């Protein structure tokens, strides 16, 4: 694995003290390639958000280590390392400061990391907004004037503003309706190809995983029960637990599937 930018080795995380402990993560090991989208799936309480927080440095692992480009990640990270790993949250309603304009929220990232000349930052914000598919005028608006999907785009733009190598996405589409979900996933796919960023995509929604991920880590009770490419996971799952997760996806029958493909082809041709 020569292109690995992030490697998590034997990560354990125990919450609580004495008798009252919870093993949130046990012996978690995985690697992330440059430009890869790694999905972390599992039911609620399986430890998928815990691993996100450990990677982001919100709290340190109990044992084990994470290396980023062969550099060990410590609990106290330098600004340079913080810049490299960015985050998009689940709830777009609270992720933006209600008292700050969209432009100011994005500008914070540029100011903190001193990206671009001071006079150019307005220009950079415009470019970022266009890149995530929002009109430039939005930078003067407050978050309250935006829909959930638009706010999630702003969160993505803010993460991109740091020019990170990795973006951790914690259920970025689960608070959105299906149509908006699809557009956000398209946007994420496009950005990953254009910018060569890696994603760690945390979700409980396997239908989303199929759309976006190269590799999948299936978590159950803090352990990785299956770790394989998306094709293998969907076509030939080894574990009973993975099969259960997949069988929980709502499906449509063959004729509906054909109709759906036809419709989306027509849609794609149109745009």
């Amino acid at each position: 694995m020569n292109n690995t930018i992030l490697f998590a080795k034997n990560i354990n995380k125990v919450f609580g003290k004495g008798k009252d402990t919870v093993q949130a993560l046990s012996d978690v090991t995985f690697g992330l390639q440059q430009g890869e989208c790694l999905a972390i799936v599992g039911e609620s309480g399986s430890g998928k958000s815990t691993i996100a927080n450990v990677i982001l440095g919100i709290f340190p692992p109990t044992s084990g280590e994470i290396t980023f480009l062969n550099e060990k990640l410590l609990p106290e990270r330098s600004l340079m390392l913080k810049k490299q790993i960015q985050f998009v949250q689940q709830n777009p309603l609270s992720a933006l400061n209600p008292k700050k304009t969209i432009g100011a929220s994005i500008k914070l990232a540029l100011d903190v990391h001193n990206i671009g000349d001071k006079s150019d930052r307005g220009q950079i914000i415009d470019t970022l907004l266009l890149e995530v598919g929002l009109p430039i005028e939005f930078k003067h608006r407050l978050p309250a004037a935006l829909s959930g999907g638009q706010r999630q785009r702003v969160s993505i733009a803010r993460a991109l503003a740091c020019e990170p190598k990795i973006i951790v996405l914690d259920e970025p589409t689960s608070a959105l309706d299906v149509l908006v979900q699809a557009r956000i996933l398209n946007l994420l796919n496009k950005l990953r190809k254009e910018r060569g960023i890696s994603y760690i995509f945390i979700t409980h929604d396997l239908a989303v995983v199929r759309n976006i991920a190269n590799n999948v880590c299936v978590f159950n009770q803090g352990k990785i029960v299956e770790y394989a490419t998306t094709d293998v996971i969907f076509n030939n799952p080894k574990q009973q637990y993975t099969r259960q997760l997949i069988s929980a996806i709502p499906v449509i029958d063959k004729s509906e599937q054909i109709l759906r493909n036809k419709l989306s082809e027509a849609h794609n041709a149109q745009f």
Partner: protein
Amino acid sequence: MKKIFYQLTSNPMSLLGVILVSIVILSAIFADFITPFPEHRGAIVDFSNFNQPPHWPNIFGTDLVGRDLFTRIIYAYRISLILGFVVLVISVPIGVSIGLVAGYMGGWTETILMRITDVFLSIPPLVLAMSVMGLLEPSLFNGMMAVTIMWWPWYTRLVYNLTRSETQEGYVLAAEIIGASKFHIIFREILPNCWASIITKMALDLGFVILIAASLSFLGLGVQAPTPDLGSMVAEGGNYLPDSWWLVIFPALAILIAVFGFNLLGDALREILGGEE
């Protein structure tokens, strides 16, 4: 701003608040031009016209040394407002900063700062102010210091609670992950979300500060003669009830109008700005 003013004047109770507060503030600012006897705010004696019931041109009557009571009252408003303003200008930044830091930092910082605050909160406000005034010499400046010392912990409590809940919000986490400094997160991210509540409390408190200052001078611990003060006017006039009723009734009504007005205004602001108490 325009919208807030419109909302303030559309509800009868808040309109009353705006009117009362305007009367208080305008009469304090333009006291020199409103009264025909501006010199009566000082040490003046006019024994030809002492202790008179309301009559023209002394519409509120005259006091025991013949000074116009109306003049004394509007100049007392001026002193009360200056006192209230200074107290809030000093105590709000102190209280708010301590509350923000304690609420955001948590841990030992929080324990130490909040326990100190609790000590101040556990002493009855008037008793604390009285003991400070007892130690120091009674004067306007020391009165302001005494009230300030008892006032900041209330803002610490308010802002601490707000900060605790704001810290849970995603935008704070987002700023942390971007790598923003603690100073930025506390004062640029969290503080703007507390302003509505702080401003509401300030409007309410202006009335209470005036009341506390009046209580202190009623007890003889505040502003000293010959400076006009509502509290000492009530205290002095109380000795001559019920015959010289105007000596008490008008200063007391003046206190009532100020406190009531600022309360109505504060309540109205709370509704409009959506602040919490």
